[in-house]
């Protein structure tokens, strides 16, 4: 009979990371693409709606004054979709160490951007979700908490990826 994998702290953190960060990333990407303008029909209006939301997000990226116009355009048109994809991959859990690393790097970038904006007293919105949230200590703490979780999840998933799967190990021993 197959044994369940040992339920230790490492697995708890990995599961927590996947279940918390996955939905947050999916919602962040969704809200940047489909909110605050949400015309879903007819199709040209949906297209306008998405373009307007990405344009709005582009302005928020630009307000950090970190990237040239081409960079702002690239980030605003790719990041929301990348966030949705990464969120789904975290939930699926396949090759977690790879996607965990990317999520950690992204979150480190967010923490850097938000902290820098706060230090420079920039009167800007965070741009994390569709709603206008000014850059604040609360926002920095939230991002740091997510970064910490992502780091732990990534370190543990790297450790786990080096070990044979408990089911595979059990089958080998039976053989």
């Amino acid at each position, binding site marked *: 009979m197959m*044994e*369940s994998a040992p*339920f230790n*702290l490492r697995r708890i953190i990995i599961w927590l990371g996947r279940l918390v960060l996955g939905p947050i990333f999916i919602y962040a990407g969704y809200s940047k693409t489909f909110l605050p303008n949400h015309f879903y029909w007819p199709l040209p209006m949906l297209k306008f709606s998405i373009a307007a939301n990405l344009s709005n997000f582009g*302005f928020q990226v630009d307000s950090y004054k970190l990237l040239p116009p081409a960079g702002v355009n690239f980030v605003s048109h790719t990041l929301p979709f990348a966030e949705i994809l990464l969120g789904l991959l975290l939930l699926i859990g396949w090759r977690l160490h790879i996607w965990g690393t990317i999520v950690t790097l992204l979150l480190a970038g967010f923490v850097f951007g938000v*902290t820098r904006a706060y230090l420079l007293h920039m009167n800007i919105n965070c741009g994390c979700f569709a709603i206008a949230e000014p850059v604040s200590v609360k926002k920095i703490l939230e991002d740091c908490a997510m970064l910490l979780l992502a780091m732990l999840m990534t370190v543990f998933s790297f450790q786990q990826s080096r070990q044979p799967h408990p089911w595979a190990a059990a089958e080998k021993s039976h053989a």
Partner: protein
Amino acid sequence: MDCPNLLYFGELFASITHFALEDFVNRRLILALVAALALGLSGTLIVLAAPHAQTASTKKSLAAKSAPTASSAAQATPQVSLATISVDGVNDIDPNKAFGNKNASVVMEIYSDFQCPACRQLFTTTTQRVMDNYVNTNKVYLVHRDFPLQMHAYSRVASSYSRAAAHIGKCEVVEQALFQNQERWEQNGDVKGTVASVLSPADMKKVQALVDSKALEPLIQKDVQFGQAVPVNQTPTSIIHTKDGQSYPVVGYVSYDVLKTLLEQVAK
């Protein structure tokens, strides 16, 4: 322990204890990560606390200086018209803050706050081009609505000056000056100086008298109430009304090229 595919609490606690003893090296790594993050965060907060407190108090005192005083308001009140008009079912439009042909196929209302960066971006890029390509060609009737947010110290003052300037026919030039110099006056609170820099002394005198009298405040208040009824949840919010009664709220900053696609569809 034979407990296939089940979360067994005994197993859970045994595993945690096992983990704590066995993975000493890993624990050290994690602890180092947590400590580094906590140190960095606490350092940042300590550095930030003082300058922010100072900025907040300075802004409050500057706002008090910039706001019109009660004694100046008691001076002679200039005669102004508070009459509003309705165009295609859009009510309470101050004609001094509206541009274009009333028979245009589209009425576009823009709710903005003079201290909001996204509103500045919308005004300096998108709205200017809409004025050139749609308003001046009689395709769009553009209505500027004031929606000063509580969170901005000088928004209300800027709205008062802009409204007063609109009533002496200097709306565009003053709005442009306020938005283009937003970063400067939001730091020092010098809204009056910014407005004075683009008006003649005679015009500035008229504007100042209107601001001091607070005669136009009901019009600003009406715009705010209208916005709250929409509801406007963030600035800028543009509402595009068509002849057939359809309304399309566009929230946040939108580039001209994107807005153009919507205007081309509805301005037929």
